[in-house]
């Protein structure tokens, strides 16, 4: 059980580079159970890399990330960090869901199969036992009538909602969102944000990279601004938008609002 004093997600001085360029130059953050952290920043600031590092889709080059007490992607051996084999990282990822900018639904499966595939193939559940659960999840995201549709037959907003249901099917402790509405037509952005809003209200712990400032203001507990691989500032949402402390944040908010 995590208590109020112990964050569910903790990043400490996380560093990451691609070749010679450092994308993350020492990021630290805490997210407590049931909290929503929104990460904003200009393109190239490292937002996407940060969430990808959180569930070890990208290995990090320094620092540490723990989720629910699990040291993600690494093991500590005599004070040194060593990468875990992919098979063991996969076990850690069972507890962390992720939603991608471009949905990444499996195009050869129906919406329902997309939601059921991980519980069946990863957790070894039997299809008849979890079918109802999967149907409920799709109904929860408003797609009860699209169970047998293939991703190619769905709009972007519908695909993204299936992707959220698919992530929820693993009953994760936390969900990571990487710009979930950036690839959507403007008219379908709202339906995805609605689902995310409900999720946040239901107590899901979320880290959300987004440019949707209205959503951030309404749903986020904390907002974090990244630039050049560093945290510019982190503050409770009201404070962050009402009175950003840093000039860089003020400038960024002016440019996108």
């Amino acid at each position: 059980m995590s208590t109020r004093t112990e964050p569910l997600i903790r990043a400490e001085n996380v560093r990451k580079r691609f070749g010679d360029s450092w994308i993350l130059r020492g990021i630290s953050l805490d997210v407590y159970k049931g909290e929503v952290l929104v990460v904003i920043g200009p393109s190239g600031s490292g937002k996407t890399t940060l969430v990808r590092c959180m569930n070890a889709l990208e290995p990090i080059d320094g620092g540490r990330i723990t989720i629910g007490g699990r040291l993600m992607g690494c093991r500590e051996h005599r004070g040194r960090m060593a990468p875990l084999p992919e098979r063991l990282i996969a076990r850690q990822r069972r507890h962390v869901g992720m939603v991608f900018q471009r949905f990444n639904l499996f195009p050869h499966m129906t919406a329902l199969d997309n939601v059921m595939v991980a519980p069946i193939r990863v957790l070894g559940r039997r299809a008849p036992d979890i079918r109802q659960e999967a149907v409920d999840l799709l109904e929860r995201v408003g797609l009860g009538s699209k169970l047998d549709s293939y991703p190619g037959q769905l709009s972007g907003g519908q695909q993204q909602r299936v992707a959220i249901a698919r992530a929820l099917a693993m009953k994760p402790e936390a969900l990571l969102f990487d710009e979930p509405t950036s690839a959507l037509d403007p008219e379908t952005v709202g339906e995805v944000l609605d689902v995310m809003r409900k999720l946040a209200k239901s107590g899901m712990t979320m880290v959300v990279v987004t440019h949707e400032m209205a959503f951030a203001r309404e749903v986020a507990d904390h907002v974090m601004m990244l630039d050049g691989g560093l945290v510019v500032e982190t503050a409770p949402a009201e404070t962050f938008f009402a009175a950003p402390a840093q000039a860089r944040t003020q400038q960024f908010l002016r440019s996108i609002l």
Partner: protein
Amino acid sequence: MDTRFLVDFILNPPAIVWQGLLVTVAISVVAQAAGVALGLVVALARRSARRWLRFLAGTYVWVWRGTPLLVQLLLVYTGVAAAGFYRYPDIVLGPLVIAGPMQAALLTLACNEAAYMSEIFRSAIQTIDSGQSDAARALAMTPATAFRWIILPQAFRIVLPPLGNEFTLMIKGTSLLSIIGVREFFGTLQDINSATFRTFEIFLYAALCYLFLTTVLGFGQRWLERRMARHEAPAAKLAAARLSRRSLLGAQR
């Protein structure tokens, strides 16, 4: 040309011609299936993180693609026997006796086919968006699980059109087998030719039969592709079309 002989032959071929045709189809199916399976293994080896495995697979493709099928057949059967390295013992499977030439033929055709199939699989796997493996990993799938349930089914759809091409080449390729004494369709016809000297009629008949086989196969393939493409996203369809076009141009041996 003796038209009556040809028409007679087409309408009422001797029983050994039917047998030969059956052998040709059987060899093609078995060798193609084995080639697909082995080709997948080679493609995986080429994508392995281990250097020596990649090197081994690369060498395999280099050798089998870089030498003519006819030479491979002669080397694997006649050459090996002549040097005394290995003699193929008859394999008895119930009522079926698989003689040495047939073993060598299946082995060579399968290994040759695997080299081509591995390249087809490799490019198909590369075509699949990296987001698919990201999503599979994010859902806690191990690399093996992700490959089996997410990557492979999608790769297979892309592979289907070039696979049809390969099978056509395989059917035609079996006509080389008479050189090592396999009594398949074309070999049988060559025997009949030596006995009757109706050379033009018989080889024309052979060409018509191969054309018939490959045409039927083409229809079957198109039907299967349409069936599998029913729900596909436009992007996947495009990728499949691009690959099949490329392999049509690159299908010469």
